[in-house]
């Protein structure tokens, strides 16, 4: 019996594949859309090593590897988690609060057939893996809040739990079928409308930014902060990381059209425009206020602009993008200046850039959204756009999305962090922190020159 089973297993596997192929049809699949979404998925993945360099350059040289590792290992952990559970928990079913377990292990997520709820012209599994890339970078963003003092083992536990309990539900609210934030009301024509979040202003940036603040408060300041010298070890690396982020963001935002079409083109153009404008705005603010235009400021501004345009990319035009860029650059610069006055140690300014930029972007979407673009991107034929187009309701939807994300992410993250702290501890020992986490946690040094 056992032998028969073992012998027939390879045949079953082969049959499974043949069966799959037999059912393969070109029905509804667009090769252009599929090609673009494959490329976009790779672009979004590339943002995470970009983030690793962006963050890695900003810490002290004794912590450069552990900081890079935080982002890099998210590619490992979340890639696997997403296939096993994450995608199903975020996108399965049609409940208003959370997904289900129907797609565990990507089971039933076809590589041939589309899922019309999420992308009618690309294979369902391509949509799933594209979303996985977002799930990877989001918790990696949080690591800026607790850089240079976080215990690696408890980071891994936090990474898994946060992804399942914070990211997946919020992703479902905003993007999942039946999610409550995307179905807050109806138009007169009967179309379902809700909070607009094209590529993750709430799901990715507000959620990670607010969590970084909560984590920074719970874990406490770095030893010697403020006062001790903590200059960035390698801003050239940070600049390269910024370039990679900007490049990858085209996949993040233009890919969120889930098609190679005009909506994607719009997202591409406004993404570039907002990043550029915000880099200039941050530089101008800093030059005026502090007397010198810094490269770290220009880079931070570009990232703030990319964050700000993320929720808006499918819905605003290039002039709206310029307004969003100016707001993102100035507001995020003000936020990081405020940090020093308030005294908390969100080490790499995840809150100041991602939560503030994401909140601004989400609200600005409610101001500047253009009806015709909203109609094209959402498929709701009488979508009224934003406040400036005479639709104040949209602004309220946006505010609802912001508040819900902030409250949920902050509360659940705080509970998670308290529990992890009580069970295994969040923070390295003080001697390990002084020696640097590269040597004490990883047994390596970043620079042996």
């Amino acid at each position, binding site marked *: 019996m056992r032998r028969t089973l073992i012998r027939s297993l390879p045949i079953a596997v082969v049959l499974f594949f043949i069966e799959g192929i037999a059912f393969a049809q070109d029905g509804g699949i667009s090769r252009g859309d599929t090609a673009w979404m494959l490329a976009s998925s790779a672009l979004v993945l590339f943002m995470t090593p970009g983030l690793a360099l962006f963050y890695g350059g*900003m810490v002290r040289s004794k912590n450069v590897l552990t900081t890079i590792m935080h982002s890099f290992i998210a590619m490992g952990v979340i890639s696997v988690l997403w296939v096993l559970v994450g995608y199903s928990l975020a996108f399965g079913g049609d409940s208003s609060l959370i997904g289900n377990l129907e797609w565990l292990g990507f089971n039933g997520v076809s590589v041939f057939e589309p899922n019309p709820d999420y992308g009618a012209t690309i294979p369902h599994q391509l949509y799933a893996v594209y979303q996985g890339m977002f799930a990877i970078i989001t918790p990696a963003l949080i690591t800026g809040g607790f850089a240079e003092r976080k215990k690696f083992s408890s980071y891994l536990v936090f990474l898994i739990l946060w992804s399942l309990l914070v990211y997946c539900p919020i992703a479902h609210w905003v993007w999942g079928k039946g999610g409550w934030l995307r179905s807050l009301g109806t138009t007169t024509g009967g179309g379902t409308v809700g909070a607009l979040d094209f590529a993750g202003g709430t799901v990715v940036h507000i959620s990670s930014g607010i969590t970084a603040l909560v984590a920074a408060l719970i874990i406490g300041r770095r030893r010697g902060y*403020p006062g001790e*010298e*903590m*200059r*960035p070890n390698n801003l050239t690396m940070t600049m390269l990381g910024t370039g990679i982020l900007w490049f990858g963001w085209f996949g993040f935002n233009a890919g969120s059209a889930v098609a190679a079409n005009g909506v994607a083109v719009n997202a591409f153009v406004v993404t570039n425009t907002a990043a550029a404008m915000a880099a200039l705005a941050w530089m101008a603010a*800093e030059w005026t206020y*502090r007397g*010198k235009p*810094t490269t*770290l*400021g220009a880079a*931070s501004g570009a990232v703030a602009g990319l964050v700000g345009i993320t929720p808006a990319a499918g819905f605003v035009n290039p002039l709206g993008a310029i307004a969003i860029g100016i707001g993102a650059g100035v507001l995020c610069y003000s936020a*990081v*200046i*405020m*940090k*020093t006055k308030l005294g908390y140690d969100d080490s790499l*300014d995840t809150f*100041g850039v991602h939560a503030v930029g994401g909140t601004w972007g989400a609200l600005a979407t409610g101001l500047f959204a253009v009806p015709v673009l909203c109609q094209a991107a959402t498929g709701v034929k009488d979508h009224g756009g934003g406040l400036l187009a005479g639709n104040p309701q949209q602004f309220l939807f946006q505010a609802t999305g912001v508040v819900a994300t902030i409250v949920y992410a902050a509360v659940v993250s705080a509970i998670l962090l308290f529990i992890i702290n009580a069970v295994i501890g969040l923070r390295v020992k003080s001697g390990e922190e002084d020696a640097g986490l590269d040597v004490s946690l990883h047994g390596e040094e970043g620079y042996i020159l």
Partner: protein
Amino acid sequence: MTKIEAIVRPERLEEVQQELESLGITGMTVTEVRGAGRQAGYVERYRGLEYRVRLLPKVKVEIVVADGLVEQVAQTIINAARTGEVGDGKIFFIQISDAIRIRTGERGEPAL
């Protein structure tokens, strides 16, 4: 024998070296150092954080010469390193009791 320890601006090192070479002095030890004299340093800003950098980059040139050459060498270094601005550096003189050339075992001034 005297050791001349000159702390000079990094950008003047090339000039100092050339002028000493024209005196026939090629042996020297150069170290990149950081230090502060009367120069105030400067402020670096990284987002919201400010750091005062007090120790500025300098180079330290160490040369050991026969006592008869000390004044001439010192004057040569001054001529090559001086800009007239605060931060030009300093020269220190230290008596040396003996020297050995490791290859040959020569001692004293012939070892220089």
